[in-house]
């Protein structure tokens, strides 16, 4: 593998007001985002949010109604064959020829790719797909084995950019762990990974930045850390004697008092809150860690508009500067 910094001149993926309509249905609406070279980028959203539409437009399966997109600096409409030469793609719920053996399928797809399967042996080893497994027909594979084969076919030619749709679907926890290791090594080698997922803990664990999409519109595009820092944490307090005055503490909301116990949510930094409640009467304090899941759910709370979670640059998230 070649070293870091090889592709950092251009964004790995760049969309500008990308829009896709199916008749009156707006699958994507003015989506603008940028994926930087060498990052692991998570693309989140529930079913029907527009994740697959975005991916399929980037790879030339779908044609945008308006707007434009570039992958590795190339236009997705005019240069999609060259894009596919340099990208590895794992479709969601991948289907392969059941009558072929795993090895034949990988050979066939590598031949069509026109590049040597330089990483196949290593990937098979890490995902525990043995030579015996590869000789079996795909129709006899379990769902997890098919998914492993899907991951290998996408990455075996060591692509500059991997686009992975629900990559851990069907993998057991051990294999998910191995898969995260593969992603981290790719990132260390300067490769870019763009993946959609429903599994929020895995996104939180491996991604540098995430985009959250709802009804075809970008809700947020931030680093995972920034996203978590904005989220409310659940707080539980217990004290001796009279109840302390909690009403004036900034960021505290949803306060509920029950005897010597109070629960609330806290937005923003924890430090000022801890200083404000510091008292010998305080007997116990629990601050639950902010999770991406809560952050994600907040973006889907009723009444929240698309702009609510966007970075300061609004729709120009693509223009967000380096961290």
């Amino acid at each position, binding site marked *: 593998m070649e070293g870091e910094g090889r592709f950092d001149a251009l964004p790995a993926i760049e969309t500008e007001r990308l829009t896709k309509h199916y008749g009156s249905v707006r699958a994507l609406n003015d989506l603008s985002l940028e994926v930087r070279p060498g990052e692991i980028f998570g693309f989140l959203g529930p079913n029907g949010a527009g994740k*697959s539409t975005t991916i*399929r437009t980037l*790879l*030339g*399966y*779908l*044609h945008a109604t308006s707007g434009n997109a570039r992958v590795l600096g190339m236009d997705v409409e005019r240069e999609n*064959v*060259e894009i*596919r*030469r340099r*990208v590895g*793609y794992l*479709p*969601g*719920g*991948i*289907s*392969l*020829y059941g*009558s072929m053996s795993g090895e034949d399928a990988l050979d*066939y*797809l590598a*031949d*069509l*790719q*026109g590049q040597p399967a330089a990483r196949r042996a290593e990937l098979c080893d890490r995902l525990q797909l043995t030579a015996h497994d590869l000789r079996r027909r795909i129709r006899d594979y379990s769902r997890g084995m098919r998914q492993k084969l899907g991951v290998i*076919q*996408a990455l075996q030619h060591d692509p500059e950019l991997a686009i992975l749709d629900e990559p851990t679907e069907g993998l057991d926890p051990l294999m998910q762990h191995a898969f995260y290791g593969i992603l981290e090594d790719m990132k260390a080698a300067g490769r870019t990974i763009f993946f959609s997922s429903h599994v929020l803990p895995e996104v939180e664990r491996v991604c540098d930045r995430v985009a959250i999409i709802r009804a075809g519109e970008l809700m947020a595009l931030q680093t995972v850390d920034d996203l978590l820092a904005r989220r409310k944490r659940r707080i539980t307090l217990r004290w001796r004697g009279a109840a302390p005055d909690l009403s004036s503490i900034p960021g505290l909301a949803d306060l509920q008092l029950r005897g010597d116990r109070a629960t609330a949510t806290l937005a923003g930094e924890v430090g000022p809150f801890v200083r404000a409640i510091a008292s010998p009467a305080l007997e116990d304090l629990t601050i639950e860690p902010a999770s991406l899941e809560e952050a994600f759910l907040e973006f889907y709370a009723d009444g929240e508009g698309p702009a609510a979670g966007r970075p300061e640059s609004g729709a120009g998230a693509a223009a967000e500067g380096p961290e």
Partner: protein
Amino acid sequence: MSTVLLLRIWRFAATRLLIVTLAALVWGWLLLFFYSQFSEAIRQLATESSIFKQFTNFGSGDLFTISGSITLGTQHPLLIALIAIFAVGGAALAIAGERQAGTLEVLLARPLPRRTYLLTQLLAILAMVALLVGALLAGMAIGAVTQGLTGQLELARFPLMWVNGVLLWGAFASVSLAISASFDRPGPAIGLSIAFLLLNYFLEILGSFWTDAKWTQEYSLFHHFQPSEILAGKADPLDFVLLVAVILIPLAYALWRFPRRDLAAPA
């Protein structure tokens, strides 16, 4: 054209193709065998029954001349069904079938232009058709030799007959492929392709049985495959031109349509 894809399509069809090729070879031999053994008896039956005589004209052929027997044999439903497995079924599934199975998704993730995919599929099917028509004619040639009929048959005209046969089935393949390129599910693609084949067959057979409906044959692709005329040295170049046009027009449509289509995620 993608050689990798081409070889894969052939390898995938190899067993079926081998079986059908052997069947076409045997069929070609049987045509000449039956002609040499039974044509006289059938001629006598025909003189005794006008209805039977009309039936011997099935598909513009007859059972009283060697070229008529060959025409009749090449338009027999059994042979048509055998060749249609590849020329119609294979072509109709080439895109719509792979779409529904989800395998097209993985193939088109490679640097394989959609037009290249389509042209490679057509080329693969044309090669299969060429093999099957070749096997049929080879069977006839063997039959002519083993039955001592070489004096009645101009074997030098077989290559032109082969070209005519390949163009006929190439036309059906091209239409089926264009239909396939327009659908996401194999059901409608297969249904329409078979309907087109049956319509052509019906028009040809109707005209051959019913004198007043003879004009319908002009609208059938089968009518432009003329073994009798070719063997008699009276091949009509317009038949060839028409079949080439029927290959090219749906192909041009498919080459225009397929790359412009949205390929949504398979259900």
